[in-house]
């Protein structure tokens, strides 16, 4: 019974870290209409920054500052935000789909650096022994899992609350106005590039935070964790949940992570041993088909964006 409970804690902990990343992507795509295909890259930047800041010194990689985990997470957000600011400054003034291509390229390049800059990142072996929050509780699995879940739930709730405030504010209104009709919004004196860059940077910081939290909960990172399939997962979460809606983003993260975990267990049980390694590939096919189905049949997702109508009209 306690095994099941600690598994549930672990499941929701991981799902909520994805939820934070999906919230970040929702600000970029759902509110600002910015197409980020480099989610995995920003998550990697956050994860490696947190690992460098909080882990103990080791021969295999750079860093080892042994800072408190909270500082590691702030550093992760700052690093991802910086990467987004540089990339955004170059590409946000271009047409929307160029942003998609350049963020994709950035993610590929970041993965290459993680894989090959051995002295910095530990190369293919990654970074191990990243300190976990509440390590003192580690010999009591249920308490350990519950404490971790409480922590990530608090972070996710804080991110949700902040984003609801942001997107409901005049700032959020300008973002949506720019997404719908850039020329009209610009004619009202709103600088499109500045607003977009802010949304892109804040969203990337949240994705970096999600990467850092995952690194800290798993205690180990390697370049394999940041393949394009991660980007794809977060996108499917947002599309399934309903982009433009923060609650939808969280719900999508839970639903898709449940589907992902369940399909992994099911394939492991159904496929013979020789096909196990290839079974992982089938899982991606299944999620791809789910995405296509949602896009075709229910483009608004589980909960779509709320219609924003002036109170003077709706009365």
């Amino acid at each position, binding site marked *: 019974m306690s095994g099941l409970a600690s598994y549930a804690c672990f499941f929701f902990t991981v799902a909520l870290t994805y939820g934070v990343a999906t919230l970040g992507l929702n600000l970029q795509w759902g509110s600002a*209409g910015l*197409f980020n*295909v480099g989610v995995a890259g920003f998550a990697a930047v956050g994860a490696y920054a947190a690992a460098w800041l909080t882990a103990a010194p080791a021969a295999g990689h750079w860093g080892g500052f042994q800072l408190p985990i909270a500082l590691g997470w702030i550093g992760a957000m700052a690093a991802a935000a910086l990467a987004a600011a540089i990339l955004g400054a*170059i*590409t946000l003034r*271009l*047409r*929307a*789909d*160029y942003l*998609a*291509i*350049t963020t*994709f*390229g*950035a993610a*590929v*390049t970041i993965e*290459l*650096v993680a*894989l*090959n800059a051995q002295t910095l990142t530990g190369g293919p072996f990654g970074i191990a022994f990243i300190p976990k929050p509440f390590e003192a509780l580690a010999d009591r699995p249920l308490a350990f899992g519950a404490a971790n879940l409480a922590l990530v739930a608090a972070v996710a709730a804080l991110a949700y609350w902040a984003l609801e405030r942001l997107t409901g504010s005049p700032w959020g209104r300008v973002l949506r106005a720019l997404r719908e009709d850039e020329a009209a919004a610009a004619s009202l004196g709103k600088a499109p590039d500045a607003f977009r860059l802010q949304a892109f940077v804040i969203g990337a910081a949240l994705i970096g935070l999600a990467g850092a939290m995952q690194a800290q909960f798993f205690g180990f990172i390697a370049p394999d964790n940041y393949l*394009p*399939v991660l*980007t*794809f997962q977060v*996108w*499917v979460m947002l*599309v399934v949940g309903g982009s433009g809606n923060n609650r939808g983003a969280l719900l999508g993260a839970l639903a898709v992570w449940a589907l992902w975990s369940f399909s992994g267990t099911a394939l492991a049980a159904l496929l013979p041993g020789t096909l196990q*390694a*290839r*079974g992982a*590939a*089938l*899982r*991606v*096919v299944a*999620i*791809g*088909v789910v*995405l*296509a189905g949602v*896009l*075709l049949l229910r*483009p608004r997702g589980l909960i779509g964006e709320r219609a924003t109508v002036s109170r003077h009209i709706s009365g």
Partner: protein
Amino acid sequence: MIAQILVDGITSGAMIGLGAIGLTLTYGLLRFANFAHGEFATWGAYLALLVAGAIGPADPLGPLTFGWPLLAALAASMVLTALLAAALDGVLFRRLRRHGSAITLVIASFGASLALRSALEFGFGPQPWYYTRDIAMTVRLGPGMRATWDQLAVLGLAIVLMLAMHLLMTRTPLGRAMRAVSENPDLARLAGIDPARIVRVTWLLGGALAASAGVFLGVTVQLRPSMGFELLLPLFAAAILGGIGSVPGAMLGGLIIGIAEAASVPLAGAQYRAAVAFVVMLAMLLVRPSGLFGGRGG
């Protein structure tokens, strides 16, 4: 040294150019960046492997490592991959075009790309495959310049395909119609051109050319499930470099990316080769986002 970089760069650049033609055409025509385009190259390569395997072994042609079965397989795989590209459009993209925005198509293509690649990985496993295990014989082209006969044959075939594509686009009514729809679909419709037919033809051509690039990559390197996905960034870079929608631009862009990648190997090491396309592309977007041939960018 420099001469050798040119030889390697031009052969890989020709393959990038072949793949980029289809990408730039669908991009220009349908206004969306198709992240699944690289998978057409992968599927083309593996389909040719299946066809060549079904035909059975034959004596290699002259100093090459492959015989006529692979050439037949190349033709068959181009046809099959063209149909795959058209089918993907019919099942997914055409329906989304009706009610979705261009960017919904990009998400869908990203999903299709992962699904297509994973399906191949399920079927063939993650390990590399080869069309043949024979050692490729090299030929000395000049001082410090060597190429395999395979590389030269592939380069020759790529040039023939590119020339044919260029003639098709500039000298035939079909090519004129394709350019017209890409420039202005409404005006083209007024002139009696059926845009839906042109879209179908563009997918068929793009899929076939990508398949040829995949087969050539398989001949000169190896077949892996991720080969097309790794080609994607160079393809986009070539299309943007040449200007979206421009066929000669894609060929020239491919050549530039291929040479830049080959030149980077002695400077930064082979492991960063894939990042070169990204850097060249960023530089181009900073300086001249519309591309060398002034396509529909910016």
